[in-house]
């Protein structure tokens, strides 16, 4: 409660929240949380694919992963632009997500290509759900930001494609598929919950 009121004060004191400039925090109080957590998520996804490429780069799966990685890089760049445009505070845990993402990607890739694909499937499932939740939140607002809505919808569809690609490439044949995906999903959900706040 105290923390919340403090954040409120920070926003009120912030000079960009004047009448004419850009009253975006008044427009939608969830917007800064959304941009922060999405940036953290795309950063993590980018690092996961980097880890997978480090291990599986020269295998037949290489081009597929490379393609998905390129898309994630674009997502990350877009959210970095949004952070600057809306002057959102980036998450303080970027160094941790940086390392954790790479370790997760490289670690699952070392278990074999099926495990790497299972990791992709688990992560993308959580992210698609998460984007859908955000879209619902944004839709509730009568004067929504069209640009952000379209961006998130587009990214949601691409993440869904990655999920399907993972299934097509035999994710379900991975060793301990159920346990592996459940653990990764829980980890991703925890990371999302933390990145919203910190």
């Amino acid at each position: 409660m105290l923390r919340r009121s403090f954040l409120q004060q920070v926003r009120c004191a912030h000079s960009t929240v004047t009448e004419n400039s850009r009253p975006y925090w008044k427009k939608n109080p969830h917007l800064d949380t959304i941009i922060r957590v999405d940036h953290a998520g795309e950063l993590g996804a980018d690092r996961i694919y980097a880890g997978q490429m480090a291990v599986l780069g020269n295998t037949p799966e290489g081009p597929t992963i490379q393609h998905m990685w390129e898309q994630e890089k674009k997502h990350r760049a877009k959210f970095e632009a949004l952070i600057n445009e809306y002057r959102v505070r980036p998450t303080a845990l970027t160094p941790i997500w940086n390392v954790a993402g790479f370790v997760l990607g490289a670690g699952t890739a070392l278990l074999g290509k099926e495990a790497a694909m299972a990791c992709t499937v688990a992560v993308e499932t959580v992210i698609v759900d998460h984007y859908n939740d955000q879209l619902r939140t944004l839709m509730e607002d009568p004067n929504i930001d069209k640009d952000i809505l379209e961006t998130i919808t587009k990214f949601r569809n691409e993440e869904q494609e990655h999920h399907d690609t993972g299934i097509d490439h035999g994710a379900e044949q991975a060793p301990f598929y159920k346990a592996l995906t459940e653990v990764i999903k829980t980890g991703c959900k925890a990371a999302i919950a933390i990145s919203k706040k910190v």
Partner: protein
Amino acid sequence: MSRLQTIIRSLKNGRRIIGPIASISVNNPHGIRSYSQMEVQKDAKLPVPLTISTQSEHENEDTKYEENIKNNILNHALDFVPKSGWSVESLSSGAKAAGYPTITHGLFPNGGGDLVHYFNIKCNEQLVEQMKTWPKMELKESTVPSQFIENAIMTRLLMIDPYKITWPKAMAIQTMPNNVSNCLATLLSLVDDICYHSGDRSVDFNWYTRRVGLAGIYKAAELFYLTDSTPNSGATRSFVASRIRDAQLIQAALNLNPVAAAPQTLTAAFTTAKNILGINTLK
């Protein structure tokens, strides 16, 4: 026989059956009235959202009106600060000057704290307006816009100039527990604005280090400025410049490649060890 039994049973159960009914009518004294009320509510349902929205608009207008009055009083109160300090007396005099009864200072439960807060916000806004007009520099990754930051800090410090004698008191007021959050908020928004307008577009942990470092520099410079009696605050300016240089050095050291820096680090460690053992040949 069976009829008799059913009659007896019904009499017995009667209490159970009739009881609740009676209790309903007793416990619900609204009885019939509630029906009519519901109908009225149904009819009234359509305009209800409209009245709510107009109410919130009214509230918005009311709060805006109140804010305007408050800002008007605070603005006038600033004129009395050099005489009576960051205090309730200034607020009373300000209210009087703005055409309200002196008792209006009750609008500000924090007293001097609210006055200092208003002053900080006003200065920050002025600084942002000024910074928008300053020339933008072409930024490369490694360079720090030290001139821009130095100008920003000095401009902001010189805004305190008319109140320099009373400013130590204001700094003391800011550290009181109920004002700390306001003070931190204005400081954070100040350094955020300076970083943003100086061209900082970092989206990683540097975002935090730059802002915290700048906040430290600003607060140190503020303390230095209070005792600075040189013309045009030249000493403060050189103080700020050297603190920014220090920050640049630290940043350069942090960005140093560990492998490239290894010989230097080893030499330094070796010299330190020699000094500790007392066998330094350069003595």
